[in-house]
């Protein structure tokens, strides 16, 4: 509950005073419509006010109700003929006031006990319990008590008891049914996002209902009086004619009950739906915002990625350009070294002593190796720069060409090459040829004591062909499985196996430039299987 709300920040005596004042004023107005002798009326909004007052301000508010009721009734009952009559009217008014406050407290007690949300009244169960407990049920108290008092103080005759009780009870009940929800709605700080809307949507139908009831009652009274006058003329019966219009009173009450329940339930539901819609809209907005935020983050990431990729592409290109230029330009000085050392060897061999011969030999050898490396580097840097189009290549035919190229190494080693059915793939033909030739060449080069057995196969995967080249060679220690693909990295000395260590690096670059992967599965002494993927 909002402590800053006007009603809740008030001191209790002021609240009591206000309730008394309000009760008295409303009661006074209502009593204008009372049936003779002027206590019971079919419209008693004060009862609704009293119930709402106790519910909102607690049981401590009862003196306000009592005082209000006392003052209002005193105005009707005050008989100044003698001291005894004054006392009597005081007693009567005090009694009626007591009944009114007990009724309000009892109603509030039951409502607090059995109604889950007595203030918001959104749910059908709450509405019905609230109206029944606070209305017809608790209104029995004041009506029974009040009428008894009237009878006790000789204000009404025994024959008038039932009609008075009915009028009283109906009046209180209708008052509660219409005015307690209204009073609660206006005196309570907002309980829901659409509270103000709900206040308004309750108020109008309730007030219309109330006005309709007032008009109907006044009209009914008029007819009654006319009828009575007529009867009076006919029967010259001077006794007060009690209201026997039970049907209309009960009808009014039930109608009010239904209408009240209907209004509350309807507005409650509307309010719930509106809350739900608001809630959903907010959630949707939030989700949308989140989505937008994500989108922005995503876009930023994508942009960054794009830039990084571009940068990487550039630096990669620079590197390749560098490798190409460096290796290209290195050729010239190398040619000088190599040429002059060879010239030296040619002209001065055996003229400068044994040492000189060896030195010259090593220099020539070094220059030769460097020449090979530069050529390899040039070749390596050229992969992916050729700009040649991909074409459909029949791998079986390609293998035949490769085996023809390798004939000179295959035949002396008594190598056997077998293969599964090989597919047609779209690749740069020369690169694919070099790839397979390097792998088969390695299988022969690094053979074991037995004649090399090489098997090539290809099997389709989701998006790529998985090729394998299996041999029965010397195998590779698993710790070197990555290193063998690095340029100029070798596992053997020149005297064991010649070469610069470019073959597998070239294979890796070819496979990766086509978007594939290459790896090896092998153990020392158990042969090797090289796998690579080529996109379909």
């Amino acid at each position: 509950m909002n402590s800053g709300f006007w009603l809740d920040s008030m001191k209790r005596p002021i609240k009591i005073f206000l309730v008394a004042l309000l009760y008295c004023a409303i009661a006074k107005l209502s009593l204008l419509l009372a049936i003779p002798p002027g206590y019971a009326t079919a419209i008693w909004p004060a009862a609704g006010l009293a119930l709402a007052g106790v519910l909102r301000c607690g049981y401590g508010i009862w003196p306000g109700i009592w005082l209000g009721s006392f003052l209002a009734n005193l105005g009707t009952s005050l008989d100044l003929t003698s001291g005894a009559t004054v006392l009597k009217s005081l007693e009567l008014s005090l009694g009626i006031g007591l009944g009114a406050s007990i009724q309000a407290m009892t109603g509030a007690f039951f409502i607090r006990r059995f109604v889950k949300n007595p203030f918001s009244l959104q749910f059908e169960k709450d509405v019905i319990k609230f109206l029944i407990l606070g209305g017809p049920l608790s209104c029995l108290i004041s009506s029974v008590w009040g009428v008894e008092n009237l009878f006790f103080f000789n204000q009404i005759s025994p024959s008038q008891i039932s009609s008075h009780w009915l009028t009283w009870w109906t009046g209180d009940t209708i008052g509660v049914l219409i005015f307690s929800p209204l009073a609660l709605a206006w005196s309570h700080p907002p309980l829901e996002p659409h509270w103000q809307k709900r206040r308004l949507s309750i108020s109008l139908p309730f007030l219309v209902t109330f006005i309709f009831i007032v008009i109907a009652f006044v009209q009914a009274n008029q007819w009654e009086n006319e009828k009575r006058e007529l009867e009076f003329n006919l029967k010259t019966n001077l006794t007060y004619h009690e209201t026997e219009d039970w049907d209309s009173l009960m009808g009014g009450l039930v109608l009010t009950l239904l209408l009240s329940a209907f209004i509350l339930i309807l507005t409650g539901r509307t309010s719930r739906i509106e809350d739900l819609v608001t809630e959903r809209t907010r959630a949707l907005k939030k989700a949308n915002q989140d989505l937008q935020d994500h989108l922005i983050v995503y876009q930023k990431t994508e942009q960054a990625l794009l830039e990084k990729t571009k940068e990487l592409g550039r630096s990669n290109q620079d590197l390749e350009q560098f490798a190409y230029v460096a290796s290209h330009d290195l050729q010239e000085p190398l040619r000088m070294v190599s040429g002059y050392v060879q010239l030296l060897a040619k002209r001065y061999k055996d003229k400068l002593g044994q040492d000189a011969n060896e030195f010259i030999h090593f220099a020539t050898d070094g220059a030769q190796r460097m020449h090979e490396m530069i050529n390899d580097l040039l070749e390596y840097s050229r992969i992916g720069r050729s700009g040649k189009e991909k074409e459909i290549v029949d791998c079986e035919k390609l293998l035949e060409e490769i085996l023809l190229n390798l004939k000179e190494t295959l035949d002396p080693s008594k190598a056997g090459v077998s293969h599964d059915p090989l597919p047609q793939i779209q690749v740069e033909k020369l690169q694919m040829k070099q790839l397979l030739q390097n792998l088969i060449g390695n299988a022969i080069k690094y053979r074991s004591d037995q004649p090399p057995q090489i098997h090539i196969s290809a099997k389709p995967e989701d998006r790529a062909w998985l090729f394998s080249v299996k041999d029965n060679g010397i195998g590779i220690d698993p710790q070197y499985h990555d290193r063998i693909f690095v340029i100029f990295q070798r596992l053997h000395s020149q005297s064991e196996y010649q070469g610069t260590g470019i073959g597998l690096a070239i294979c890796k670059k070819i496979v990766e430039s086509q978007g594939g992967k290459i790896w090896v599965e092998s153990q020392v002494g158990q042969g090797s299987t090289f796998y690579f993927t080529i996109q379909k």
Partner: protein
Amino acid sequence: MPNKEKGKMMGTSNIVGRPIEILLVEDSPANVRLTVEAFKEAKVHNRMNVVEDGVEAMAYLRKEGKHKDMPRPDIILLDLNLPKKDGREVLAEVKQDPDLKRIPVVILTTSKAEEDILKSYNLHANCYITKPVDLEKFIEVVQSIENFWLTVVKLPPD
């Protein structure tokens, strides 16, 4: 190391009966010497005249200035990358000159670039040779230049 081996006779005689007049356009002294030595090893009877850049090459061919008494070369060995005037420009000028265009021009370079090869032939180079790194192979190349252009091929009279 001398840049110009002017009038130096070496090797056996050829079909012309006199030493072959060679114009070598090459800026690197080491390269010049290596080519000279290769010709020596190949035992080609030649007179090697060397110029260092494209401007001088044109002056030599047009007998301008100090080159006015120089003989007309039987063959030009032209490098592509030269100071002042590029080998490609020299080639273009020679092949557009009515007096000079019949002299065989052999592009002798280290470049293997397809672009260079294509451009040279488009400019009517008579042949394009990438200098081998290996000396023995270079000697073979030199020998075959001499053998082909000055023995096998029948060239028009001057």
